[in-house]
């Protein structure tokens, strides 16, 4: 079976999306596995669950400033 290339989707506002199961080696040498159909890898470094996105990239808006 020919190997399909791994599809990687760049988002303009948040994580990088990797399709298929992945094993990620983090900067400190840890290996973290994700078996999700798609994995969102944090690029903004604000996540509290590295290396995965937890939506911490979202703009935080004080309620009184909202229209």
């Amino acid at each position, binding site marked *: 079976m020919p190997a399909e290339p791994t599809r990687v*989707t760049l*988002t303009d*506002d*948040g*994580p990088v*999306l990797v399709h298929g199961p992945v094993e990620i080696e983090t900067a400190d040498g840890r290996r973290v596995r994700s*078996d*999700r*159909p*798609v*994995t*969102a890898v944090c690029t903004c470094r604000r996540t*509290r*669950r590295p290396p*995965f*996105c*937890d*939506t911490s990239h*979202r*703009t*935080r*808006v*004080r*309620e*009184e400033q*909202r229209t």
Partner: protein
Amino acid sequence: MTVVPATPHTGRAPLPGARGPWSETVLELLRGGDPPPAGEPADADPYGDDLQLALHCCYELHYRGFAGVDDDREWDPRLVTLRVALEERFLAALRADVPPGDDVAATVEALLVEPVGPAAETGVSHHLYRSGELWQLREYVVHRSVYHLKEADPQAWVIPRLPDAAKAGLVTVEHDEYGAGDPARMHAVLFADMMRELGLSTGYGHYVDVVPAATLAEVNFMSLCGLRRSLRGALVGQFALVELTSSPGSERLVRGMRRLGCGPAAIRFYDEHVEADAVHEQVVRRGVLRPLLAAEPALAADVVFGIRAAGFLGDRLGELLLGRWSAGRSSLRGPLPDGPPR
């Protein structure tokens, strides 16, 4: 090979008790009777216990059915006619109560900011994170069980109704909800594991009798939009709202549960949703909404309606919970054994 865990939540639901003439008529039809018409649907409270329970019972026939009820009642014309009449009443109320719009991009953008500050941090997950008590958390899980024991099922109805690209995106998310090939990781199974660890019954439909109309209405809206092809845009809107907003709330529930000393199976359900829904948000925006609106731009107003109506119903339930709890009262129609201190 993966062994399917033996979980009781896969069984049929018991028939609930009636809450008025409409639900009594539906239950009588389910029991094989031939009751007279219940009256004019226009007179029924669209958000009331009677209408919402009647709809819930009609919809349950399309999921797993009721113990002791003939499966063919699903397509009994008397039940279908009644269901559609009550749906029209419910839909008309929702259309009157949420502002119309067709700017999907702006509506989605508004969901992708995280409101902070005392004026914003007032929802149920904020309360359970900061100061909620264990009996309140257990009540919250009871409310949620009406949906989560069949998590992703209402949205599965929409699959054949979507254009190809949107279908592929939606199924990617649904596949993850259903455990990505591993039944033990299905979100409905993880939810049942959490209920068990919190000392709650995982029986399918077990808590329907104790949840109020506001809880049933949220799930009924999903079933209504899922079963009607004409509301496929609204179903996608409802789906998008959940997937776009649940990550931060799930994180708060994880922290609230840790504060309350809950066990690992309890924490795992919401813990899973922090990361899963961070992915689902991206897939829903890029892989579902974008291709759906490219193929069927006329659905934009329905998508916005689905987002807003689901938000409206969610807010109503949240206000009910917080209102009762702040008064030291149960949010259920009958408190759990460890309910609010008397």
